[in-house]
């Protein structure tokens, strides 16, 4: 199959050889495999979304979103669960995002490379892999019992924050590390402090990566059930309709993920569309957050043109 070393007189020296045909075939095979994998991830995504919309759309309405569940959760809306999820995610984000981002800045920009930093890095990576049910137990022990906060939005949010922190730290570190070292050295050379360098050059160039990491964790926090079940979520609770501050931070709350579990397994005689509608709202919340973050990033880019 190899190309001949000598070219026969009169033959076209650029004629296709077996080698070239094989190279083109391999290129096609590689491309097809990668494309196939993209299809493989798109199919379940489309099926899930399509099925949810098909099954659940009949129940979705403004009233569904803004009224409390009634009749043993068989009728009414999901207001208290929706608001509960918003509160849980909001409070946990307010705690986890600053702590995680600042800690990552310290680890990446200030800390020297020594055994201590390496242990911290190792701990962060390993913590990111701890199952959420373990975080739930930790939250129950640390916040609800030991700290005496009791089962509440605060305890549940703190648990979610602890769960999301390692991943926020890891992704922020990754984003910071992608800023070229020469930028920092150029700043140090003119006598800028580390903080001036971080604030003026490093953060503006990594903000979009940092945001992506944080936002992914918002989605994760919104969907988790185990940690909040242990620490502050309840099956049922009525709250004032239409009031965004109907929950107090020390209250227990309902949450969409748990409500989904309840209406699909614990309640008999609920309309068949109900679990799908709840799932659809949960998905909608996550997508809404993601969309907000993406548009914020686009806005940032258009203003700073990095």
């Amino acid at each position, binding site marked *: 199959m190899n190309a001949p070393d000598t070219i026969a007189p009169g033959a076209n020296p650029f004629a296709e050889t077996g080698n070239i045909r094989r190279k083109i075939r391999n290129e096609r095979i590689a491309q097809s495999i990668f494309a196939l994998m993209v299809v493989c991830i798109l199919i379940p995504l489309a099926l899930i979304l399509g099925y949810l919309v098909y099954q659940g759309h009949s129940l979705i309405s403004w009233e569904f979103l803004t009224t409390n569940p009634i009749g043993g959760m068989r009728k009414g809306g999901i207001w208290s669960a929706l608001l509960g999820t918003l509160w849980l995610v909001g409070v946990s984000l307010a705690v986890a995002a600053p702590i995680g981002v600042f800690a990552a800045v310290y680890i990446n920009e200030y800390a*020297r*490379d020594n055994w201590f930093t390496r242990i911290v890095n190792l701990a962060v990576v390993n913590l990111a892999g701890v199952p959420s049910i373990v975080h739930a137990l930790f939250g129950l022990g640390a916040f609800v019992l030991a700290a005496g906060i009791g089962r509440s939005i605060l305890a549940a949010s703190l648990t979610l924050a602890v769960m999301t922190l390692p991943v926020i730290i890891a992704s922020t570190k990754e984003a910071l590390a992608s800023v070229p070292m*020469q*930028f920092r*050295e*150029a*700043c*140090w*050379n*003119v*006598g*800028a*402090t580390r903080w*001036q360098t971080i604030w*003026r*050059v490093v953060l*503006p*160039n990594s903000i979009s990566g940092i945001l992506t990491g944080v936002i992914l964790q918002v989605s994760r926090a919104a969907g988790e059930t185990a940690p909040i079940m242990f620490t502050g979520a309840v099956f049922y609770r009525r709250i004032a309709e239409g009031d965004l501050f109907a929950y107090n931070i020390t209250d227990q709350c309902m949450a969409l993920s748990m409500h989904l579990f309840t209406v699909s397994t614990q309640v008999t005689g609920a309309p068949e569309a109900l679990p799908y509608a709840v799932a659809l709202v949960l998905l909608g919340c996550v997508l809404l957050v993601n969309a907000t973050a993406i548009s914020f990033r686009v806005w940032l880019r258009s203003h700073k*043109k*990095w």
Partner: protein
Amino acid sequence: MSVPKKIEVTDLRTSYGAKEVHHGISFHIEPNEIFAIIGPAQSGKTTLLRAINRTFEFTVGSRMSGTIKVDGEDVKRVKSVYDLRRKIGMVAPLPVGLPLTIYENVAFAPRSSGINDRKFLDAHVEKCLRQSALWDEVKDRLDSLGTKLSGGQQQRLTIARALSHQPEILCLDEFSIAIDPVTTMRIEDVLKELKKEMTIILVTNLVQQARRLAARTMFLWNGEIIELDTNEVMFSDQAKDKRTRDYVNGIFG
């Protein structure tokens, strides 16, 4: 004591991990002179500059012994390392346009020292850009990104930034490798002017550039000073070391 030395290096040894870069070198640099350092790659020219402004210590596993004195003050014992670095303008071999506007690239250093007076900054930015022979090309687009300039323009922007904190010592690390010969000559003219105001350390691979500009030249090879003398000696047959004569005549290196 005669005239105080601008920079005085005594028995400097530096190393990255197990690899020693400088094997104990000593020399001094006079105020307001252009001091050239020539030598092949890996001979420790860049590390020497990094040791002077103490950015050397940012590299993991770096160690240094001996003393470097700037204006008679040991760089390891200075009160504020930021003041030390502000005193030394540094131009890297490859241009680093910060991802800021052209204006902010030059205004970065004054701003870092807390200067925010717009009038002063405007005048200052113009002065530095003129000195680095870039003003005419960018004066109408100071608000566009520095990283969008061409390589040679970015290098001149880097020089403007190095001048922007009014350094007393200007270190140029092979500044001309990304610039065309005509611009290089323009900047060399600027350097001759700047010599009146500051001390210039010129690390260069172009032996002829050292010959054109410097008063004295140091030939550094594998972390040792092969020869250090005035240019009349270095670039003539009087050079004591055969390696120096061979290097400046292009026989090796």
